[in-house]
């Protein structure tokens, strides 16, 4: 039995794959102790098959897990108080950085607040020590200073310490010795070494990444430990695999020293699920969106590839570990609506979260997107989460009304304004990653995920002129679905072959073998059958004197000349020229080990569908374009392949509701995905081409 659980800011999503089918579940996230929400959702899954939690958990072979815990801590700046120990005379690297945060930001915009480092200057301690770029120690580590700094950090109430020394990628000795001192003096502090988190040259990127890891690491570690213990206590005997921001996976033990890799660990899995669905339509250019309770994530998939980056900034922090390239915005169902100083309706980034939640949940008066959706009639008051949460329409209306009263708007107008504002700001985020990269959104298909993605997905598409919207069967739990179907992978990188043009083939081979052995050990811990794992080798190389490298695959049984030949070819391919007369330096060796998971079981149905009327469960009075309309409501679980109907309609399911606006036609494909097509696509070449693409 394979199970995945993704904890978002508001809901905890779960996908269970048994021999026969895929089942999806949702439970509220429990922010004070997220593991409780995780057990709740497993309990729900157990209940569905008539088992106790213990019986169910005992049957699970692999549990995949993603969490936004780290991201939330960082973005809300609620992480640990961190001290930073670094080479004396260089304690301001974190503050000076390499200049302005983001060079994508225009030179014509100079009015911006200065950066506030996660570790203020008085908590940054210079330690006498010096390692050279060769790895040679020039000045031995002053352990007394490390001890003194640790005591000072303790006195200031620090909960974590990051250690970053110059050139530690070339020799980890000083960082590791300093760590030992810290652990001796202050065994309760969470300690992170920069060379453990990111063993690459470039102190700013390495130090920044290490500090972020220390900032979120303590809370993440505590949580994962507790989670594993609880699962074991409930009889879990399988492997717990943690999803990383790079879409690779780790065991819990491997995560403690590198919590930074768990940033956005859930959302990183969603693009894989979107791509799998897109592929079944022959769509390789996709915009994957995931709108949950707290945030809106968007990822562009071009020509079937999910891009990763090592150039990411998370909030104001530089994080140089590899991440799936996802853009995130504080807009979800739980996002709080407010009125700004210009008298305009705004939505987010503050969220009501899981607790107290939107006004409609009955615990607050906060007007949220969910409340507006309810007031507009899009959400079912009596079938939210299959009826588990009953929504209080009056309370939602009161909250929205109070908001509107501030600017003299009535209830319906205010609800429309909140809905529109949320839609426009999410459309803006899509523009950011797509249009602003020069891609025409109209030639993409939108794959909508997340609980709130059902209601807002088509509105965003309509706003941008995107002709096709796909709501996968796993739409409400897209990230959790991604974890279940993506390959289980891990990567190792070995660096430090600086300025060397003559790396002997035997040395390369030995390096690769060593890395493969290390990965095999990890796969064993993950409970993966070693025979199924394939290892891909690659190197990063560049022409001597350059600063940036190009990765090429290393094929078995290839000599040096052939390898270099392929480097020149690859370089030519990317940059339009090559320099065969120039020496080539090899910088890094990479090994990626991976094993495919069996595709999720699903029942493909063929033949004629039953009557559409059988799926119809009633109608709901909705506010569409400002006027009340009675809209037919279908139950997603009852819809059958081949069903086709025109908007406006609503499709309720146990975990989400889909709004089919007036401008769209909806159809159900063989895999029960719901596809929306814009009826009157704007007549431009781009649209015409997109619309002409094969549909099933």
């Amino acid at each position, binding site marked *: 039995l394979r199970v995945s659980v993704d904890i978002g800011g508001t809901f905890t999503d779960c996908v269970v794959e048994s021999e026969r089918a895929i089942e999806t579940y949702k439970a509220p996230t429990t922010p004070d102790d997220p593991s409780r929400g995780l057990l709740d959702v497993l309990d729900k899954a157990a209940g569905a098959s008539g088992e106790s939690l213990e019986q169910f958990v005992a049957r699970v072979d692999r549990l995949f897990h993603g969490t936004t815990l780290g991201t939330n801590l960082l973005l809300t700046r609620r992480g640990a108080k961190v001290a930073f120990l670094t080479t004396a*005379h260089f304690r301001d690297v974190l503050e000076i*950085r390499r200049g302005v945060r983001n*060079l994508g930001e225009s030179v014509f915009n100079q*009015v911006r607040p200065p950066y506030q480092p996660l570790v203020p200057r008085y908590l940054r301690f210079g330690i006498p020590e010096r390692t*050279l770029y060769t790895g040679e120690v020039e000045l031995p580590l002053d352990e007394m200073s490390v001890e003194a700094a640790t005591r000072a950090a303790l006195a200031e109430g620090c909960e974590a310490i990051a250690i970053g020394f110059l*050139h530690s990628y070339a020799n980890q000795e000083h960082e590791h010795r300093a760590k030992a001192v810290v652990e001796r003096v202050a065994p309760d502090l969470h300690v992170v070494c920069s060379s453990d988190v990111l063993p690459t040259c470039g102190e*700013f990127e390495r130090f920044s990444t290490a500090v972020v890891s220390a900032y979120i690491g303590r809370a993440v570690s505590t949580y994962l430990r507790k989670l594993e213990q609880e699962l074991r206590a409930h009889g879990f005997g399988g492997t717990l695999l943690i999803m990383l921001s790079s879409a690779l996976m780790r065991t819990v033990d491997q995560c403690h020293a590198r919590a930074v890799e768990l940033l956005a660990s859930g959302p990183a899995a969603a693009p894989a699920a979107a791509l799998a669905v897109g592929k079944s339509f022959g769509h390789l250019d996709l915009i994957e969106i995931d709108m949950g309770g707290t945030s809106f994530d968007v990822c562009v998939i071009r020509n079937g590839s999910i891009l990763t980056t090592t150039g990411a900034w998370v909030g104001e922090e530089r994080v140089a570990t590899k991440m799936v390239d996802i853009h995130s915005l504080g807009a979800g169902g739980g996002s709080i609506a407010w009125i700004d100083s210009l008298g305009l309706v705004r939505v987010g980034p503050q969220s009501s979260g899981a607790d107290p939640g939107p006004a409609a949940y009955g615990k607050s008066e906060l007007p949220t997107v969910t409340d507006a959706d309810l007031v507009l009639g899009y959400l079912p008051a009596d079938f939210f989460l299959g009826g588990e949460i009953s929504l209080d329409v009056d309370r939602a209306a009161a909250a929205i009304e109070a908001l509107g009263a501030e600017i003299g708007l009535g209830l319906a107008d205010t609800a429309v304004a909140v809905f529109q504002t949320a839609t426009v700001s999410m459309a803006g985020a899509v523009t950011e990653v797509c249009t*602003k990269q020069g891609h025409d959104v109209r030639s993409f298909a939108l794959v909508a995920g997340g609980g709130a993605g059902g209601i807002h997905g088509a509105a965003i598409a309509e706003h941008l002129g995107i002709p096709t919207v796909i709501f996968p069967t796993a739409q409400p739990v897209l990230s959790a679905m991604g974890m279940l179907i993506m390959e289980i992978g891990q990567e190792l990188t070995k660096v430090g072959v600086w300025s060397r043009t003559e790396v002997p083939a035997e040395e390369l081979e030995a390096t690769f073998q060593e890395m493969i052995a290390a990965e095999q050990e990890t796969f064993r811990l993950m409970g993966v059958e070693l025979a199924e794992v394939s290892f891909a080798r690659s190197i990063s190389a560049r022409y001597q004197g350059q600063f940036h490298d190009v990765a090429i695959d290393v094929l078995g049984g290839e000599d040096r000349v052939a390898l270099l030949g392929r480097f020149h070819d690859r370089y030519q391919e990317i940059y*339009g020229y090559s320099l065969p007369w120039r020496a080539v330096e090899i910088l890094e060796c990479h090994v990626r080990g991976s094993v495919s998971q069996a595709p999720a079981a699903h029942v493909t149905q063929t033949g004629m569908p039953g009557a559409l009327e059988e799926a119809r469960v009633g109608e709901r009075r909705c506010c569409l374009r400002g006027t009340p309309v009675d809209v037919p409501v279908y139950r997603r679980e009852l819809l059958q392949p081949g069903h086709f109907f025109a908007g406006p309609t609503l499709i309720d399911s146990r975990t989400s509701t889909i709004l089919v606006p007036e401008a769209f036609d909806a159809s159900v494909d063989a895999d029960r995905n719901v596809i929306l097509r814009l009826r009157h696509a704007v007549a431009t070449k781009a649209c015409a081409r997109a619309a002409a693409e094969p549909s099933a």
Partner: protein
Amino acid sequence: MTNGRPEVDPITLSTVWHGFQTICREMRHHVERTAQSYLMAVLHDISVGLWKANGVTIAMPEGLFDQFLGARFVIEDIHKRFGEDLYPGDVIVTNDPYHGDSPHLPDWGFIRPIFHRGELTFFTLVRGHVMDTGGSFPGGYFPNAYDIHAEGLCIPPIKLYERGVPCRDVAELIFNNVRFRDEMRIDTQAMISTTAFGERRVLEIVDRYGPELVDACIEEMIKRTERAMRAQIAAIPDGVYYGEAATDDDGTVLDEPVWIRVEIVVSGDEMTIDFTKSDAQRPGFVNRVLAATYGTAFGSVLMMMDASLADYHNEGSLRPLTIVAPEGSVTNARYPATVGGSPVAVGGQITDAIVEALSKACPGRAQAAWARHRGDYTFANDPRTDEPYVRTTFDYDGSAGAVAGYDGATGPVVHGVVLRGNVEEAEIRFPWKMLNLEIIPDLMGAGRWRAGAGIDWRAVNQGSEGRMATGSSDGDEMVPKGVLGGYDSPKSRTFIQRGDERIRVKPHRMQELRPGDVLIKLSSGGGGVGDPRERDPLAVQRDVRDGFVSLEAAEKIYAVALDAESLDVDDQRTAQLRSRQATRVEVVIDGETLTLGLRELG
């Protein structure tokens, strides 16, 4: 279609508009990924842009103002020079300030005419600061050349490729007259292939939407930007706004400042930037050619406009602006005046003078001057390879000036266009070991919003003896200014410690270097905005806790009294201090002790 023109829908307009901007960003990325010069690959000393065939600016999001905003000048020269003799696959190279738009000789520009269905439609330009350009000394910042020809190889707009075929003789001539010829070939290739990449991406857009629709989009983009720009100018009260700034000297006539004085005349929705009162052309190397003054001036004005326009500038932004720079002025030099130092000395001052003038015009967007560049070009041998090297970086520079509403950030340089390197990478590349890179307390312009911190940078020479040109350095005497009552940035200093001997090194000089010399740069932060005595006492307290501001400066400059131990704010004494008559205080570096002192000015 209306009036024979295709109708522009908002999504196409937005895609095309952002598409052109993105092409420029990708082009810059392309150079960075392939270049081997530290300045281009790591520090971003590169500019790229897109123009219509007639020189109208389409996109200019990435670069140093003087390297590319005046590209219309070189495009004009190319039309005059080549007429119909331009073909797909041509690449034109030039670094000639007098027949193009290069601000100084090391900024080599590569220009590619872009044809669509046989018709010349666009130009794209990539210009980067190359490692060497011949002349008396590597790097192009040699302070005392006799004329432009002594400054280095001066290449008028000529073809380096014709119809896709390299012009070998031209290339041989060029590469035989520069140092680091292999490295120069790589960087040249990097920039040329980037223009080809830009061409491909532009044509993708044209093919997708058709030339008529793209043209209509460009027209609409320019129209909208011009409208927004004019609205911005119209919001500024009509009047004449004055600003001035000076460089320490011109490198030939020593210790005599050179002044840039600007009058900005705002009239309705138009603005004239008048340099008539600036100093006359100089014997030394600080002269600007008109194209460079044009680029710097217009870029500086745009920097003071509302940030919401930041990502959308094009020809429309430039149309409401007029420039007046009399020939023979230091802002419009006559051939064969030397220009090598002008990007830093005079170029930076043009920006500072304009920003000062416009800070008076728009106090809500007031900006203080940024730290002066403290650069040098060091030329010597690297014993590890026994090869010559040239080293220059921005690592030793100070920080950002303050803006109304925010402190200046600590770290950014050159308005955020270029980057600092990593210590680790620099040590691998150059035979210098870093000894120090930290903030110096108090060495910044104080203010209600203070500048980013000053920087104490030190490194030891582990290479051979050599020479160091400080042509790209400035700010020992003439400092970046504060505005609206904010303090000016203190004076910066550079020293060489040679055993017991301490040698002061001024800007715009040549200095010999010996093995074991320790180079010490104490660079001040930038200017402040607003009276420091109005700064939030809690912000001052935080600055003292973090070592940005000393207890003494807190009291004397910010008029905030803190308990020396607990750093608690003494509200009563602070109120007393703030009620007293203000005394201006100067922050001075002591050349003996290398410590800072506060000196009250009468």
